[in-house]
């Protein structure tokens, strides 16, 4: 029985989410073609990640990492529940969603770091420009591959993320995407 709504996602975590999504998608599609924009979007991602890690400690309740850090058992249990079509309602991120967030943040962190390194090694620019003279051609090629591979890995995670959001939305009978826009979720009689 719905009893009104509750504001779950603060404006900052929402802004973070969509800005991050936009920048990643743009960079993934544009690649190195418009390098200046690619670097700009990548540096925005770096800033967003920096914010998120701090906000994950000091932010609003459901933005904090402690809110959605679950054990592997709990994650498996939640997924098993999905398969059995057991309806669960979570105010913040459910265990699977939480795991996805950590996976994405880690992937993006590695991706951005490799990007900054590549920017220095290949273009002799940015904070890691020292790498330009330090890496030889072979190492540079490897770095390019690593950055490219990480981008694909994160893209795969994003695909899984979209799938997960769709599935959970259907099972919880809630529009999780809309929630990430206006920040609100329906309140029910019993919350987990």
């Amino acid at each position, binding site marked *: 029985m719905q009893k009104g709504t509750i504001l779950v996602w603060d404006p900052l975590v929402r802004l973070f989410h969509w800005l991050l999504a936009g920048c990643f998608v743009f960079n993934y599609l544009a690649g190195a073609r418009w390098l200046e924009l690619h670097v700009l979007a990548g540096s925005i991602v770096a800033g*967003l990640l920096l914010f998120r890690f701090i906000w994950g400690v000091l932010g609003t309740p459901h933005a904090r990492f402690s809110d959605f850090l679950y054990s592997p058992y709990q994650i498996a249990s939640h997924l098993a529940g999905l398969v059995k079509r057991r309806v669960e309602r979570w105010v913040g991120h459910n265990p699977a969603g939480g795991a996805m967030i950590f996976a994405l943040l880690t992937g993006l962190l590695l991706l951005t770091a490799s990007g900054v390194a590549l920017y220095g090694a290949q273009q002799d*620019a940015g904070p890691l420009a020292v790498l330009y003279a330090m890496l030889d*051609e072979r190492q540079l090629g490897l770095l390019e591959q690593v950055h490219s591979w990480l981008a694909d890995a994160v893209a795969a995670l994003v695909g899984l993320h979209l799938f997960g959001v769709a599935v959970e939305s259907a099972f919880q009978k809630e529009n999780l995407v809309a929630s990430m826009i206006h920040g609100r979720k329906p309140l029910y009689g019993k919350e987990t």
Partner: protein
Amino acid sequence: MKKNRIWMGSALFAICLGTAVSGIAMGEDEGEWGDRKWSRQGYLREQGVAPVSDKRYASECGACHFAYPPGLLPARSWRRIMSDLDEHFGEDASLSRRTKKVLTRYLVHNAGDVRRDEVSRKLLRRLSAREAPLRITHLPYFRRKHGEIPSRMIAGNPRVRSLSNCQACHTQAARGVFEEETVRIPGYGRWHD
């Protein structure tokens, strides 16, 4: 959600983004991270190397081979080449002393480690300060870029003959542009990786 926290969070958000963007995407051109002479905007947009601008160099040094833009080698390499023109890769390329002096000055002032155009920086990557290579075709970056081309397209191709014959395939070489899109190998067309 406490309002205060949100306001503080917003400030944090702005600071984080500002720091990251200014630190990565908008680094200073000189001083901190390098001593490039070009602005980063023009630098990233620059697609090649400064073309040959000295008419005498073009005519004296472009008769038997492509007049290589000075940006393709470091100054010390040019000095080395110009100091032994009697034995110039097996040919006699000797010049009058005055001509040699004028040409050497042009080359050294526009060398790859001086002008640092995009192609120059890539070509001269990781050369030690002592190395003064004589051949552009032996530079590691050059080898990496041309290593996969079958010999039938170069040595076995009567219209190319040698990797040192840049403009045979690089159609915009005279303008200092060597982008892969501009490459047309005689008898084979575009290069596909």
